[in-house]
């Protein structure tokens, strides 16, 4: 079973929940930048939550299915259609053999995650089907998709959850559409918080930052108030993680995303919390973003709460289909 990429769009790659176990060799975690959105989309089409899907940046993707499948997507505000029928985010849609799926340009946000029943069946490399674009391995031939590619699809774990049309069932709105017109990202303090003086730290939480065009899957570069360090001592390189905001000597912060390096030598001022990484993944050039502080204990509380709701959602979906 397969699907033909008739238009690859601006930047589309195969991603799952990312890679682990090879960080000591410098291998990034990668994976769908909104891994929660991808998990939700997978459940909607009857997949295991970790199946590989497509990450679509700035739209333009068109697919032609060779066989019947069920698809669902989460992410920014895109116009998506199966044939001439609109497919809103967070709903499952049945695709017949020969039918086309199209992604338009996003109104708000910049990325979407598409799940297809059976998952994208590329070989796992170092334990994951995610594409590492920097090191060029994994996913589909270690690269972004091109017009004409034929992607192998897996076999659904059960019967297709939908025989026709668009599903009634859906997921909570903020899960399937992690975009905010005025995004605010919550953070916990980083180890180098104290290397910045009080007025700099105040600017971080009171002023807005603008997303630079040179942002990518490695990180979101921000312009705005300069975050100059109070001390200039050299730091020893140590681990960084998706969500880390590091501040190079020019004072322009970089919010790291899934494809970020494993280590860094710049001060780590704060870390965006895991439940807000989906919102961070929607930031595009020119967007304004603000930051607000939460305690580490609250970051964990929010994450555990969402996970409990996800578990209920999973059970609810399986009951609906029986």
């Amino acid at each position: 079973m397969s699907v033909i990429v008739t238009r690859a769009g601006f930047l589309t790659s195969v991603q799952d929940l990312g890679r682990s176990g090879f960080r000591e060799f410098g291998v990034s975690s990668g994976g769908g930048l909104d891994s929660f959105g991808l998990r939700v989309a997978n459940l909607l089409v009857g997949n295991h939550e970790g199946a590989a899907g497509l990450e679509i940046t700035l739209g333009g993707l068109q697919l032609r299915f060779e066989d019947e499948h069920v698809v669902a997507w989460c992410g920014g505000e895109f116009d998506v259609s199966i044939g001439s029928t609109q497919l809103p985010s967070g709903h499952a849609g049945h695709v017949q053999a020969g039918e086309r799926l199209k992604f338009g340009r996003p109104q708000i946000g910049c990325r979407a995650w598409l799940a297809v029943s059976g998952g994208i069946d590329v070989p796992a490399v170092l334990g994951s089907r995610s594409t590492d674009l920097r090191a060029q391995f994994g996913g589909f031939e270690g690269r972004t998709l091109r017009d004409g590619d034929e992607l192998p699809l897996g076999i659904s774990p059960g019967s297709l959850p939908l025989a026709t049309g668009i599903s009634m069932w859906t997921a909570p709105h903020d899960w399937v559409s992690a975009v905010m017109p005025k995004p605010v990202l919550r953070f916990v303090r980083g180890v180098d918080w104290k290397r910045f003086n009080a007025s700099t730290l105040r600017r971080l939480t009171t002023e807005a930052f603008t997303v630079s065009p040179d942002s990518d899957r490695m990180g979101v570069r921000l312009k705005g108030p300069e975050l100059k360090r109070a001390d200039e001592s050299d730091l020893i390189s140590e681990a960084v993680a998706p969500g880390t905001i590091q501040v190079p000597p020019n004072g322009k912060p970089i919010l790291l995303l899934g494809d970020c390096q494993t280590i860094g030598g710049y001060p780590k001022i704060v870390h965006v919390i895991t439940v807000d990484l989906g919102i961070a993944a929607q930031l595009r050039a020119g967007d304004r973003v603000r930051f607000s502080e939460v305690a580490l204990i609250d970051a964990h509380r929010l994450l555990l709460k969402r996970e409990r709701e996800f578990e209920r959602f999973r059970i609810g979906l399986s009951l609906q289909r029986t």
Partner: protein
Amino acid sequence: MEIVPLGDSALIVRVRDRFEDAPEETLDTVLRAFQQLRGADIPGVIELAPAYTSVAFFFDPVAVAKATETRYKMFEWLATRIRGVVAAGADRGRHRSSASPGVRLLEIPVCYDREFALDIDDVAQRAKTSPSEVVRLHSAAEYRVACIGFVPGFPFLTGLPKELTTPRREVPRKEISPGSVGIGGAQTGIYPLRSPGGWNLIGRTPLRLFDSQKNPPALLRAGERVRFRKISRDEFESLRNEKSHPERSEGPRRRSSRHTSESA
């Protein structure tokens, strides 16, 4: 030892607070903590990675919460567990007769020909010596992998002769060929993949430093010892045409070496 959060799903175990003063001893201590934590089976751990003075500890907060009653104070809970594991290991280490086990030494062939040594004149000028002396010094020293990072498989090597210290180029190159050997500050390293980079290039190895089809995917890991062997352009070609990235049990010549004092 200091344990600090790295966001909500990772933390950093800072085993030492300085590196350059005693790289050998620091690396031994950090790697011991890394091995102990890896063997400790702490609930919720996803992966660990050593770098210079610290060990990064990535965890799944959901799995940690399931394993503990404290639920939300999971950072404190993990920090206590980690302290216990590392302290117990340090005790055992003290009772051992020899502090450091045998560490693999890998010999890496490097062609220092002009064609690959784009910045060797800059390095020589700064060291107030000749390019051939740069090659002699670089290939005579013994190095140790302080960390793998930047791109997959890139080894940061400590042990560079002090004369060869050269700051990074002011304008980084947009593209560097795989296998390029460079000097950045007081370290030397090898670019495993085509990537941008700002280090001063002095040679190239025909070996593959990273191969995603192998496990482990990188030729080197933190703590290992490295020597560079000067080879000719012909040897470079013939080695490159051989199956590179040899199996760990054969390939580049190696011997195990006992702990020595700082080599730089």
